[in-house]
């Protein structure tokens, strides 16, 4: 088991944003979190990546507890993420963004950087090579020297995914990767995610675009008001009466 979440709980003031949520992610699969707005999906991501500390429950990654660790420690453990509202380093070039994503692969420290000791150039050269290869995979290699902010929105999303892949993580959390993409871009994205899975990468996905979710996800957990209400394969989840109620509302007279 790559990731195991148990009894995860988080309160904001008196409101429980996430209540007793549990799920397991098998290595080499795509796991999706879906649910109406405010269901707590992004909060789950923030808890897994250490950006928020849970009030209860546990998170195990590769058999080790990671709840309570700092975000950079969790990144070092092998989990990276993308953000729903893009968090690119917009003043840096496309290439520099990916190179920064590869921070964990380098060793050069503060003093060494100032003195530019030999060996730095070799390390940088290697990281540039790897980053360019990654940019090639998402089709951004020809834009490597552009400022990240100059890319169209859809390509910025791809760049963020490339940056999240740059450190060679075991698990990547993707927060609404299809949001704001047109249908062609969404299809390309789905194809890319499936290719990453083929290469052995594990992903957890928060996504509103149901077509994409049903196409790529191996398993789906449905959240509503911070609680898991159903889990299963795409077909199982689609047939679940409670899921249909959560999505369409309970008041039958409206129909």
């Amino acid at each position, binding site marked *: 088991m790559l990731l195991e979440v148990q009894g995860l709980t988080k309160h904001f003031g008196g409101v429980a944003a996430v209540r007793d949520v549990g799920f397991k992610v098998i290595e080499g699969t795509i796991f999706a979190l879906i649910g109406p707005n405010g269901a707590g999906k992004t909060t789950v991501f923030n808890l897994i*990546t250490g*950006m928020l500390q849970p009030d209860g429950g546990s998170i195990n990654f590769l058999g080790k507890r990671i709840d309570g660790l*700092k*975000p*950079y420690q969790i*990144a*070092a453990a092998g989990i*990276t*993420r993308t*953000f729903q509202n893009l*968090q*690119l*380093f*917009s*003043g*840096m070039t496309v290439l*520099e963004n990916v*190179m*920064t*994503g590869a*921070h*964990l692969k*380098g060793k*050069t*420290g*503060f003093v060494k*950087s*100032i*003195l*530019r000791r030999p060996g*730095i150039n070799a*390390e*940088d050269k290697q*990281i540039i090579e790897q980053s360019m290869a990654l940019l090639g995979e998402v089709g951004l290699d020809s834009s490597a020297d552009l400022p990240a902010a100059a890319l169209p929105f859809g390509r910025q999303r791809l760049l963020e995914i490339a*940056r*999240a892949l*740059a*450190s060679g993580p075991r698990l990547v959390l993707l927060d609404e990767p299809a949001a704001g993409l047109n249908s062609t871009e969404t299809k390309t994205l789905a194809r890319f995610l499936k290719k990453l899975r083929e290469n052995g990468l594990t992903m957890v996905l928060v996504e509103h675009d149901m077509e994409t979710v049903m196409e790529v996800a191996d398993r789906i957990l449905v959240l509503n008001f911070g609680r898991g209400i159903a889990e299963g394969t795409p077909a199982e989840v689609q047939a679940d009466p409670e899921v249909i109620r959560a999505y369409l509302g309970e008041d039958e007279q409206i129909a």
Partner: protein
Amino acid sequence: MDRFRCLMKIKKTFLWPAAVLLFLALPLVIDSNYLISVLIVIGLYTIIVQGLGILMGYAGQVSFGHGGFFGLGGYAVAIMTTRYGWHPVLALLAAIILPGLIAAIIGRPTLKLRELYLAMGTMGFGILIHTMFNEAGELTGGPSGIAGIPYLTIGGLTFDNDIKFFYLIWAVVLLVLFGINNLIRSRVGRALRAISESEHAAETAGIDTGKLKLKAFIFSALLAGLAGGLYAFYVTFVSPAPFGFNTSVQFVLMAVVGGLGTFLGPLLGAALVVLLGELLRWAIPLVIPGAGGEYEIIFFGLILVVLMIYRPEGLGAFGKISKSPMEKTPAASDVGLPESG
């Protein structure tokens, strides 16, 4: 077009060395101790603002306490040379290491503070240090300070006049400029820039942002201490007055006016603030006879306001798009900056 580009490239390759050489030849042409001393002061402040620029422009942390680190460097040299008879080079090392150590100690709790609280925390530190200079009578000589600091001697070379100091200080400025240029282009530099863009994204890339901010804080304190030590050797006298809260504010001002996160910003900011101060001190009594120092501050403020309206990203922000509220923004060439070549 290609020929034009080629020419531009040649121009760029030779422009910087030429500008540096021209600048270094200044003392040979300028026959005025006053002007040389102004250039020395600009150089000293540039060293400090270069470090502060890393802290503010990249690590995103403000400090209103760097007057204190500057002073610690100055007093370290004064005390070690006059009271303990240390060799000037050793005393200068102490002037670098002491502020660095203190920054390492106070940095951990202080940098957990954010925005206004961080400003207040560092300000409190600066005031504390300044008060200590005034009150620790035995050690610091109280308000009258410590006189009789020997000249700096490195090897057989004694820095006993302004021209020698000019070369010493500006050599240090160039070294620091070179080092920072290396830093910014490196893995650590990318991490620092990442913090200033998105701290969340930096953390998820595996960057220990807290530790890196602390390192930037220590680095900036080391440079302020170095400048303080050099200052003490230059004027051979220290007193609490030049190391107070006003000085700290001036450093922040230089960093902002010069342009945060820009290569030449610290130099331009230090030069502008120092030159403007000197110019106003000379010009205002000519225009308004009998005017006191308060008029200087008014005009100083006015000029800075105008500058920040037209060039909010600072003087050093070449090539960046100026986000001015006015549609027309002056290009670098319009303000007579070196980019015009």
